[in-house]
């Protein structure tokens, strides 16, 4: 069994809301007065659970509330949660940029955090000078930096500009150089905030790839904070789901993600339109839509190896109109993955309420988030009776254990068909 490298024990962190000004000195004096009499800090008691959407009564909130967990050597741990769930506060405490209010963290080995690349870059200094300065800020010695200098410059691809002040760099070059320095740190524990993943696609891929290398090839521990469920699922074996400063679930990454998308994400797996808001015209209107499995039970998310049913209920109002139900599926990049329509169905010529299911076969959609738009149309003449755009939003996830190739990263591509391969020996 590998050893524990991080142990977080009953960690809590309180923040004061609002402005610091004349009011806070009164609190400071009050706090000091309580302490002089040997009493507990009065402002710790009135801290509230941190839910930014609700208006609270207290000026103090618990950004972290009694968090405990452990991380093993070589583990790649993902931390997910909504904005304000306490993820960044946790990372700040782990990287020692702020201290907890209660509890403690014990760590074995050197910690480096990539909370933001390029920290401490000085615009007037040259690329060369900044590599040394930034490296030293991140905890490297000059000797270490000198040894890796060529590698860093090479990785960043800025050789030609190395003696130019970084203020003359393009923003792309700047980020590349900054990341190159950070990527060549050799800490036992690497903390990565998703801020890192805001660059272009190539840069993101480089970041994620580097993290995977660090963990699997070098046996280092990585803590990765992200909103990107797909990235967490492909990279991490284990994950923690944080909610309002507490751990809502921890364990196997897929289970945690499943609970997260069930409770938090903007997934819409079932939608019922109120009477006066139903999209539609005098021919047809939509009443309800939901995501179902093969037994017609509602589901919140689907697996790549599972058949997905998109079911919608609508009313046909006009005799003989025979509208055609159809569906448009988009991914989060806005690509129209496919569109599909039922054959013209004589049943729909009679007014009444109908339910239609469209089955998306297993092993068609790649993992990721999808939007489904539902419509009915007639084609001669062409007319759309209703089009409920983004009626359903759902996630398709992959169970990494069932993947039949050894490759563990994210499968590229809009779709993920299961194809037949044939290899024969020729000689």
């Amino acid at each position: 069994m590998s050893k524990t490298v991080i142990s977080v024990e009953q960690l809590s962190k309180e923040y004061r809301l609002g402005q610091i000004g004349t009011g806070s000195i009164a609190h400071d004096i009050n706090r000091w007065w309580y302490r002089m009499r040997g009493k507990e800090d009065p402002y710790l008691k009135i801290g509230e659970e941190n839910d930014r959407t609700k208006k609270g009564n207290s000026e103090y909130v618990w950004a972290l509330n009694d968090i405990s967990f452990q991380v093993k050597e070589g583990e790649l741990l993902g931390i997910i949660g909504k904005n304000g769930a306490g993820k960044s506060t946790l990372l700040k405490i782990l990287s020692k940029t702020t201290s907890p209010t209660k509890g403690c963290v014990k760590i074995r080995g050197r910690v480096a955090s990539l909370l933001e690349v390029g920290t401490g870059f000085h615009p007037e200094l040259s690329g060369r000078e900044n590599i040394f300065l930034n490296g030293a800020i991140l905890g490297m010695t000059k000797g270490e930096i000198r040894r890796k200098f060529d590698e860093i410059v090479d990785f960043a691809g800025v050789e030609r500009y190395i003696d130019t002040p970084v203020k003359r760099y393009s923003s792309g070059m700047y980020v590349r150089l900054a990341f190159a320095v950070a990527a060549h740190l050799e800490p036992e524990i690497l903390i990565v905030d998703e801020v890192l993943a805001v660059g272009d696609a190539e840069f993101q891929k480089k970041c994620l790839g580097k993290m995977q290398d660090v963990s699997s090839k070098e046996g280092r521990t990585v803590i990765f904070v992200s909103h990107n469920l797909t990235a967490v699922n492909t990279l991490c074996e284990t994950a923690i789901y944080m909610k309002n400063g507490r751990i809502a679930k921890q364990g196997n990454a897929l289970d945690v993600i499943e609970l997260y998308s069930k409770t938090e994400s903007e997934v819409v797996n079932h939608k019922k339109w109120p009477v006066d808001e139903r999209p539609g015209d005098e021919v047809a209107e939509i009443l309800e839509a939901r995501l179902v499995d093969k037994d017609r039970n509602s589901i919140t998310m689907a697996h790549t190896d599972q058949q997905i049913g998109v079911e919608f209920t609508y009313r046909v109002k006009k005799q003989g109109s025979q509208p055609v139900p159809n569906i448009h599926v988009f991914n989060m990049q806005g690509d129209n993955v496919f569109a599909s329509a039922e054959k013209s169905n004589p049943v729909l010529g009679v007014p009444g309420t109908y339910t239609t299911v469209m089955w998306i076969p297993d092993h068609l959609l790649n993992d990721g988030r999808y939007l489904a738009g539902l419509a009915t149309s007639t084609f001669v003449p062409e007319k759309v009776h209703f089009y409920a755009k983004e009626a359903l939003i759902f996630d398709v996830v992959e169970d990494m254990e069932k993947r039949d190739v050894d490759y563990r990263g994210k499968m590229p591509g809009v779709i993920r068909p299961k194809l037949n391969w044939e290899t024969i020996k020729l000689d």
Partner: protein
Amino acid sequence: MSETLPHKQEKWDIVIEPKTHLLQLNLKEIWRYRDLLQLFVRRDFVAQYKQTILGPIWHIIQPVFTTLIYLLIFGQIANIPTDGIEPPILFYMSGITIWNYFAACLTNTSATFTANASIFGKVYFPRMVLPLSVVISNIVRFGIQFLLLLVFMIFYYFKGYSIHLSFAWLFIPVLIIMMAGIGLGLGIIISSLTTKYRDFAVLLTFAIQLGMYATPIVYPSSFLQKTPYKWIIEINPLSSIVECFRYSLFGKGTFTAGDLAYSGIFMLVVLFIGTIIFNKVEKSFMDTV
């Protein structure tokens, strides 16, 4: 994620806890980051004069002009004596050189937290490295101005004035360390207070301006000996350092060993208090800055 085995529980490299030990100096850690310290010094010095034509020569121009102005106003117009130091220009220049060092140490270290909040918020390194780097990079600046002072002394030697050489010169480094210590100590106290209440930063800018007049920079200590304002010079721990600095250079100055001891103790006290407050603040200042 199972329980830690009991026998493994003891050896941790880092323990992050809410409370700090008050007088934890972490000298070992600062030593580990000595390369960073050196790079910060370099950055301070190099970055300041990038894209200027005169570069470090600016370090010389500023004290020369200040000296000339003081010579005109305090020497020629106000007619304040210079303790018999001849020519008077050396009196003013020596005062300005050592005062500049103190003022720069104090102003720059007092901005430690607020000016570097963006770095501190993202990466951990011993925070004390920054104020230390300020004190050291200012020594370089002081060195340049001190050389300028020597050049002037030699120049006036050839014009017929004498140079006062004695063992007292060996005392100058000690005086510089005392100035640095007081500047650093006060600076980190103010920087710690500024994280929450910015009032102190405002206070500091004019406190330094006024402080110069409460220190024998533009007048000698002897000038106030018989006036009711003598006590100002006496409680000011910088007075004896400035007077001793002039005594070392020119053989003229009013101070006692007791005055110097007072300054030394003052330095130790502010450094002690400064370290305590700094340690307390560095852990959580990101929440209040």
